[in-house]
């Protein structure tokens, strides 16, 4: 008695176009599915100062450990990569998608589509992706924006780092202790020092 493949269970109901429209907020890289709306960097700046700067800083530099939103060019191959929309993100669509769905943090999905395009335009502007503060970013134009790190990604090519043989005895491996978490000393309950974070 296996599961019947393709069996209709007569459960659930049709989603109306209105219902889908309320929740279908995602944007594809080429702009497919983008919410109808538009905005300019200049419009975005004002909204950013009012609704975003408290966490991300007036210049997108990030307050405390909140994310940095600008800069980081030419850092990806360095010891201290700074990953921002300008330095890292391959598609502009991701910005408007994310800002609309998740920001401002704690008041998600309260922006209008126009505000989301304006904020996206502003962030692209401060990251030198757009150079005209009156550029109209919209559902029509978002798919055409070219991001600096568009070609910075490769498809997963794991598994990697595999040994040639599985050595079981007298393996030639270094066994000198070269680092100790105790000395780094950032484990909670130990003291208040902060370590290298994930963000």
């Amino acid at each position, binding site marked *: 008695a296996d599961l019947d493949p393709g069996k209709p269970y007569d459960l659930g109901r049709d989603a109306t176009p209105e219902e889908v429209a309320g929740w279908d907020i995602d944007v594809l890289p080429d702009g497919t599915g983008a919410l109808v709306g538009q905005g300019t960097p200049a419009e975005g700046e004002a909204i950013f100062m009012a609704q975003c700067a408290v966490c991300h800083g007036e210049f997108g530099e990030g307050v405390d450990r909140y994310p940095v939103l600008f800069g980081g060019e030419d850092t990806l191959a360095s010891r201290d990569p700074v990953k921002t929309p300008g330095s890292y993100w391959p598609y502009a669509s991701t910005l408007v998608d994310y800002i609309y769905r998740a920001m401002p943090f704690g008041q998600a999905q309260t922006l209008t589509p126009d505000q989301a395009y304006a904020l996206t335009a502003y962030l692209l502007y401060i990251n030198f992706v757009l150079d005209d503060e009156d550029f109209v970013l919209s559902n029509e134009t978002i798919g055409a924006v070219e991001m600096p790190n568009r070609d910075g990604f490769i498809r997963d090519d794991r598994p990697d780092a595999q040994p040639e043989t599985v050595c079981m005895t*007298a393996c030639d491996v270094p066994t000198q202790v070269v680092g100790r978490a105790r000395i780094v000393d950032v484990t909670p309950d130990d003291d208040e020092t902060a370590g290298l974070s994930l963000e």
Partner: protein
Amino acid sequence: SGGRAGAAMAAEADPTALPPNVPWWGHYLGDGVEAHPYGKPSEYEAHVVRRNVPWLTATTESSVNFTPIHELHGFVTPNGLCFERHHGGAPSLNPADYRLMINGLVDRPMIFSMEDILRFPPVSRFHFLECAANSGMEWRGAQLNGVQYTHGMIHCVQYTGVPLKVILDQVGVKPNGTWLMAEGGDASGMNRSFPLEKALDDAILAYAMNGEMLRPENGYPLRLVLPGWEGNMWVKWIRRIEVGDQPWFAREETSKYTDLLDNGKARYFTWEMDAKSVITGPCPEKPVLRKGINQIKGLAWSGRGRVKEVHVSTDGGRNWMQARLPDPVLPKCLTCFNAEFEWHGEEVLLQSRVVDDTGYVQPTMAALQKVRGVNSIYHNNAIQTWLVNQTGEVENVRLG
């Protein structure tokens, strides 16, 4: 954190409770059956809790805490101890208000209530869920001195739910539908792309873990389960699945969860969790307390299948022995291992190494860094080294 080790055990025994005496609990009645309609752990296990690292994130609502894997026995994680990772906090929502929408390249866009979902034929499977960032703070060196922090972004429960395939059969995926996007209903609206093949293979829309409904922090009332794949994709409080013909490149699969290599290029769509193992005792929280025979206990897993072998070394990887793997060993599920070692007060370098049934071998950190550098954040599955010093204390160290 080593100081918390075995808190319950450390207390002096009460001589009046020891033989030949009959302890108080041998004379007087304990709690009746009406006392705890929903039970809880012993007061002597109060130290067994999830912990977070305050400096790690700007806010606890977009943060993580860690499973106390050094206090676990067996491969099931009790629900109360499953690590949490949220991007907009954990909402507690009324399942009567919950809806799942399926739209996009489907014959019939549909909406399901929890009553509907619970009426489909259920499947139940044990799977580990590991955050791709587990051990992410250890790329550059030994940083956190406790296995709860180095390896605790993992848990393993029995999920019960509906195969995603069954739901897709209801809506009818159009011939050009090849990709899916899962979207959370929480305040982060987390969205991730995954290929249709995974949905048809072993993906589950799960409503229960370890027999009971999901906990709020684990996505109550419904979450996506993608066995063997990185935890970020297992969208919680899932509200919508869209079928498309291309991936979305959402923020969580571009800005985050891409793995930056030394040359500045980043891998994307790194879904599978490579095979990994760690010794959970001894470990910084569980020092070696006696000379003579001690047990090495640990956990191993693979996102690609079943654990085949686990090897343990007491000399930093020069010599290895086979560990025992008590059955059952299930695919894409945590697997316990154990082995004995004798200790006579010398310094010891403990390591474990897993081999899975695809032949994949857990690499050393040196081998991993050679391919990936130190900026990947995600997918650190390197062999972990614990140094046992002459007093039996255990430290997280890096060898080189």
